[in-house]
């Protein structure tokens, strides 16, 4: 087994809402290995985004610990981490090109190298012809592509993705799944991907962390055995996909049922 990049140990988080204490995550432990694609799924409010935010230092845990490459996560995100938000975080005042260049500019990469790498990223994302466009003129799918490329262009070893395709229509989503898998296939980052969409998780991930409803605990750690490379559309008709989907759905469904009763 590959080395452990992210180690999560007995992690918990309780939010204060006035006098009330609301437990969001409770006693969660799992490892993410090098170049592994892990998806976290669960009913809404199960704390899956909270876990991701804690890995990314956006929220401090109330209990337990997270180690990224052996170092305890502190107040600032570890430099090897990239993050793609669900919300549109493309800078509206920068063109597509200059958005993608951001991370390189921050790192003081030379102008000529920035130009070359941005050009390559634009090509990879199929955004040719839109280099000079401002985000306001782009569709939601294109903006999310810009956000994705902006994170990938600095080659983060670990990529955290918080429902990055949650706001997109099915068609755009499937295209982006294919693109993400192709990119991941060549760059082999370690990915933690949060989603409420089970089919998305199965399509993309090596392993799925299924959460219970609030307070979120781990219900099931599921290894996806679908072979790679995966065809995001054909995949859904395969018997293996349907079998795995049914297995996880059974576990998730219990959570939904308990909630309803």
């Amino acid at each position, binding site marked *: 087994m590959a080395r452990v990049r992210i180690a999560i140990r007995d992690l918990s988080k309780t939010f204060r809402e006035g006098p009330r204490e609301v437990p969001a995550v409770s006693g969660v432990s799992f490892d993410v290995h090098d170049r592994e694609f892990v998806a976290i799924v669960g009913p809404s409010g199960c704390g899956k985004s909270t876990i991701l935010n804690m890995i*990314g230092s*956006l929220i401090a845990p109330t209990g337990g610990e997270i180690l990224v490459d052996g170092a305890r996560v502190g107040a*600032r*995100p570890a*430099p090897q*981490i*990239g*993050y793609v*938000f669900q*919300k549109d*975080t493309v*800078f*509206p*005042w*920068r*063109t597509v090109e200059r958005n993608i260049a*951001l*991370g390189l*500019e*921050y*790192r003081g990469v030379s102008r000529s190298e920035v130009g070359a790498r941005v050009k390559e990223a634009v090509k990879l994302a199929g955004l040719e012809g839109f280099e000079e466009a*401002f*985000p*306001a*003129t782009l569709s939601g799918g294109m903006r999310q592509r810009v*956000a994705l490329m*902006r*994170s990938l262009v*600095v080659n983060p070893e670990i990529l955290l993705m918080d429902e990055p395709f949650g706001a997109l229509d099915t068609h755009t989503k499937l295209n982006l799944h294919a693109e993400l898998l192709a990119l991941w296939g060549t760059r082999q980052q370690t990915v933690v991907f949060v989603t409420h969409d089970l089919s998305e998780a199965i399509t993309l991930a090596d392993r799925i962390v299924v959460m219970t409803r609030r307070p979120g605990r781990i219900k099931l750690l599921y290894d996806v055995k679908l072979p790679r490379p995966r065809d995001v559309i054909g995949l859904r008709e395969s018997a293996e996909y349907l079998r795995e989907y049914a297995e996880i759905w059974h576990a998730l469904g219990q959570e939904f049922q308990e909630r309803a009763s």
Partner: protein
Amino acid sequence: MKAGSGSVWIWRVGILVVFLAAWEYLTGIKAISKTPGLYWIDPFFISRPSAIARRFVYLMSDNVRLPLWRMALSTVQSTLWGFIVGVTTGFAAGLLLGRSDRIARIFDPFIVAFNSLPRIALVPLITMVFGFGLLAKIVLAWSIVFFIVFFNTFQGARSVDADLIHSARFLGAGERQIMRTVVVPSTLAWTFASLTPSISFALIGVVVGEFIGGESGGGLGYLIIQSLGTLNAADMMVALFVLGAIGIVMALGIRQIEVRLLRWRPEYQKR
């Protein structure tokens, strides 16, 4: 230009022509000014377009000690200086207080107090301190513009999207880089939105300053007060028309700059 703008322009010019013609014609009829309640429709009070045009040509010439164009220049100059200084200091202060809760809390009561003071009440004090010249007018314009820009910038600096800051941090930005690439551009959008009202208010400040400032400060406000003293309605109308023209040109200029700087915003995208 939008389709049908030709007919819109015909209407506009038509209304203007009718208005001026009525003004010229009605002020020529003595009987109207004798009618109770309509006494003011008289060249003595509101002058007439033909008389205003004649005075305009005369005042523009070098036959007068202080030609009209020099007064206009003085007004424009003070307005632009007051505007520029007001915008830069307002922006700097808004950004500083907007990004620092502590400083904002300390200064809050002072700012509220100073801003609630009617600025016109300050004119005599400013005149006492800065004299009757250009500087007093600039200070007055500044004292108004500063607060408009300050409050807008302050709001803008407070409402910078935290997720944009987070994403910059994940891309490797340090605090200074976050300031330069996230906080400042995002705040500037709010600041720019305050530029058009600012230029109008700067002009108000300058004209009020000129009312008091007298001849050494010059300017169109001085011409208005002088005309009041000599009961010269035509000269006063000349000053008002020139002021109006200056106001329009400056507002349009600022609008152009705003569109250019905010071209990334959806509402400024070319359709």
